[in-house]
């Protein structure tokens, strides 16, 4: 009494499949996810039914995947013992497929009913199969049905005479070119990839051998705190799921318990710009292993495994919508990590220090945002200083109650570092990302901690000034020197400082440095742009001031220059010292400076030769 009816979808299925394969899904292998999702939904539906009816008390969901045949005859069968489809259900899911082609991806996003998703999920199978056969028996009706669909839009529906078990079986015949997706290893890998956390057995059967593919137990997902006592197991899981050997982790859980997870701490330092790749499961099924937005930005030292039932996936089911819910979840998960770090600070400082050393940038990023965190962690942060790279607690000790001096740029630090070091002066390089911000915030977490920004000019404060007598003695020489460097907008100062081997120290403010680079660029650019730069110079010049060339009277050569009486000689020596300081500091010279150098070199040669003749 079998009856066959032929129908046709009012659909351009080819176009639909193209949308799915090329625009929506990232790879054909998602068909595995879609069929697993269908099976899961069917099992969930049957369970929900069981809560009201006596029918399925003690019901256990199960999915079996079977591979048979070889080459082009390969068939993949996916069987679940879920709720099954009635004849009416089949017609409904087909009509939903019919709507799909009109509304495209929008429908995929909005369709949330079991039947609707079932039909749409099934379409993805056409990416790897030219024929889909669905055998199903609904728990409600008891009639066994067969549906056969082709990508050209034709399908048949048939009542079967044999009695199927309750549930659904889907048969996919390998489409030429898709053999890869039917290889047993590939199928197993995909089943595990998408379904590792499914709460019932997912079995794979190849050549009569059957084994379980997903994790045997996932009850800890209800209460991630349990994971603390199962360290080895969790780290193994991290390796299996994330492909990396981690050494430590932090359990995650939101207050509602609807989102949980494991935050694995990366065992290596990573680049600040690297992608945050978290692996996220929605209702036990993998949504993405590239989710970037489930943890706060500062948590870049974490690679996490997250499961949730409260976030809304995008149409492709590969990302989450950025909405208020996600915002809330993200900040709660961030709080878990922060709390754990604070807890470590109290009870396991060694463990924390280890992680800070590896992920200092991440922790500093958080500290900049979060005063409480900064208050607890600051002592362990390290900074580059003239005393070497040291932890802040040590630097504070060294400073002995005096303010911590820091430069706000790497450049300024370089300008003064050798002088400061020679004088045993503690200066921190605040030029690296977050460092200045942290130093400037210290005061707010502890008023006793003061940090003071040091500019290169301030270093001179620690120089020894001249005696009144020396001042008078060298006054006229300094005037000659000032006159020589005036055109370079540089002034001279005479001091005594260590190291004696350093004859001069050139310091320049950030604004003066900008001005310098503007002036040098004016020489290199087009007439139009040099006019523009000239206009801008006025604004910069106001703040720029002069650069300063400090002569070190402790240096024997400098001392001899100041004994000289020949004005031309002093001028040439000053110019040479200036040019030399520029070269040592890698400041490119402009035309007038190059001219200066040329002139003084010639002067010295001339003078040297002249002297030789006289002897």
């Amino acid at each position, binding site marked *: 009494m079998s009856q066959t009816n032929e129908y046709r979808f009012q659909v351009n299925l080819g176009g639909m499949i193209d949308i799915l394969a090329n625009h929506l899904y990232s790879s054909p292998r998602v068909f595995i996810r879609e069929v697993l999702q269908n099976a899961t939904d069917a099992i969930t539906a049957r369970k929900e039914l069981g809560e009201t009816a006596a029918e399925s008390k003690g019901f256990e969901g199960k999915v079996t995947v079977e591979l048979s045949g070889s080459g082009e005859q390969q068939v993949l069968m996916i069987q679940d013992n879920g709720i099954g489809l009635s004849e009416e259900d089949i017609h409904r899911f087909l009509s939903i497929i019919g709507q799909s082609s009109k509304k495209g991806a929008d429908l995929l996003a909005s369709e949330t009913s079991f039947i609707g998703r079932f039909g749409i999920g099934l379409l993805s199978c056409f990416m790897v199969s030219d024929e889909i056969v669905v055998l199903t028996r609904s728990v409600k009706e008891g009639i066994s049905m067969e549906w056969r669909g082709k990508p050209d839009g034709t399908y048949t529906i048939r009542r079967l005479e044999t009695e199927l078990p309750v549930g659904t079986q889907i048969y996919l015949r390998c489409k030429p070119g898709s053999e890869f997706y039917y290889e047993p290893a590939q199928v197993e890998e995909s089943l595990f990839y998408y379904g590792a956390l499914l709460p019932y057995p997912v079995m794979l059967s190849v050549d009569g051998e059957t084994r379980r593919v997903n994790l045997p137990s996932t009850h800890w997902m209800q209460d991630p705190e349990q994971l603390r006592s199962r360290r080895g197991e969790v780290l193994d899981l991290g390796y299996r799921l994330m492909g990396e050997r981690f050494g430590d982790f932090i359990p995650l859980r939101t207050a509602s318990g609807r989102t949980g997870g494991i935050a694995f701490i990366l065992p290596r330092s990573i680049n600040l*710009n690297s992608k945050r790749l978290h692996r996220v499961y929605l209702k036990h099924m993998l949504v993405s292993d590239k989710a970037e937005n489930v943890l706060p930005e500062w948590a870049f030292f974490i690679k996490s495994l997250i499961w949730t039932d409260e976030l809304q996936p995008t149409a492709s089911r590969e990302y989450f919508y950025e909405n208020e819910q996600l915002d809330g979840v993200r900040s709660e998960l961030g709080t878990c990590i922060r709390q754990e770090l604070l807890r470590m600070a109290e009870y396991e400082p060694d463990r924390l220090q280890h992680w800070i050393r590896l992920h200092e940038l991440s922790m500093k990023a958080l500290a900049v945002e979060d005063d409480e965190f900064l208050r607890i962690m600051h002592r362990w942060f390290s900074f580059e200083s003239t005393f070497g790279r040291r932890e802040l607690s040590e630097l504070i000790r060294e400073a002995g109650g005096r303010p911590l001096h820091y430069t706000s740029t790497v450049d300024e630090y370089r300008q003064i570092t050798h002088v400061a070091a020679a004088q045993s002066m503690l200066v921190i390089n605040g030029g690296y*990302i977050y460092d200045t911000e942290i130093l400037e915030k210290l*005061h707010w977490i502890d008023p006793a901690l003061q940090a003071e920004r040091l500019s290169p000019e301030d270093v001179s404060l620690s120089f020894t000034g001249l005696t009144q007598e020396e001042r008078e003695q060298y006054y006229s020489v300094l005037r000659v020197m000032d006159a020589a460097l005036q055109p370079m907008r540089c002034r001279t100062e005479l001091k005594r400082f260590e190291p004696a081997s350093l004859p001069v120290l050139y310091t320049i403010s950030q604004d003066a440095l900008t001005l310098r680079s503007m002036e040098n660029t004016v020489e*290199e650019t*087009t007439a*139009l742009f040099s006019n*523009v730069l000239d206009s801008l110079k006025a604004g910069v010049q106001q703040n720029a001031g002069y650069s300063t060339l400090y002569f070190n009277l402790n240096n024997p050569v400098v001392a001899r220059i100041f004994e000289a009486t020949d004005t031309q000689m002093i001028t040439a020596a000053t110019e040479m010292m200036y040019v030399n300081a520029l*070269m040592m500091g890698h400041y490119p*010279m402009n035309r007038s400076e190059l001219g200066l150098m040329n002139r003084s070199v010639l002067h010295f040669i001339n003078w040297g030769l002249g002297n030789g003749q006289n002897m």
Partner: protein
Amino acid sequence: MEDTIYDLMEQAQDLPGGAAKLAILEEAARLADASGLKELAYEVRGEIVDCAIFNGYPLKALIAFSWQLGQFDQTPDEYDEQELLWTYKWILGKVCSFPNIPKTQVEDLVEDMRKRYAEYGYNERPYQYYKFRIAMDMGRLDEARQYLDTFRTIERDSMSDCEACEQSQIVRFYYLTGEDEQALSVAKPILSGRMTCAEVPHVTLSQVLLPLYRQGEADKAKDHHRNGYRLVRDDRDFLKTIAEHIEYLAVADPVKGIEVVERHLHMALDYESGLEQMYFYAAMVGLLQKLDASGDSRLIRLPASLEWGKEERTLTEIIAYFRPLAESAAAAFDRRNGNTFYTDWIGKIVQTA
């Protein structure tokens, strides 16, 4: 020396955009200049322009670009003109931010770009479009309306800004003219997510807040504020956008606005663009005045980089410090632009005592 320069560039690559990265790149440029390695110096400057323009250092970007352009004109065959011409637009997007650059020079720059684009076979859409943007920057909205009508009639080519960027500038136009309904309707494809790029919807979300709020859609405005602020809050590039969020919060939720002010003031203090700084100061003063007037006596934490910022300050003290800064900046822009646009604008959001 070349090795050292490459090392520095690699170091810079590992860093997110910002002062630290620029310092390293500048060091590399200095070394390249000092050793006469022109091509390498050109390459490094390209990185400087890129980093500086998107992190609030337009002056540094302008200097580096000027150098590149001069070098390019000497030996055009050595370098990629496409990259340089594309960068030119970024520079034009920022030149109005410096009140010291006279209007005629700004105009000369756009003409120079027009000439160069024509020389390499690109059409006039970018030229007309930048005339539109510059007219907006200068508060000459009637002029802007004309350019808006012109640029859209020219076909897009590979030098044109992306669709999303152009659309966002049109939203900005109606935001500036106060045509709320127009602004919201032009913003639609951006709000729906159909048009996006690296800066859109970031810059658009802040410009629909007040229009929505004024139309009684407070909840929608709140949503867009939350999303929009999240997109821009860690990025120095968006100081003006952050200022627009503050302007909205001054009306919708002043207490929350304080957090935003405290979080970003240090950025504004260390900003090379006078225009964006002015926007921030003005929006902030407007907000603080609201709170002050409501009898709020809270103290605000100021960044330590501000000389007197090591102590908590009262609202009145802070207002007294920043208001003149915003006002004198606005006056300088108006002098350059030949109108009273910015002074009027500040007058609207700041209560005159």
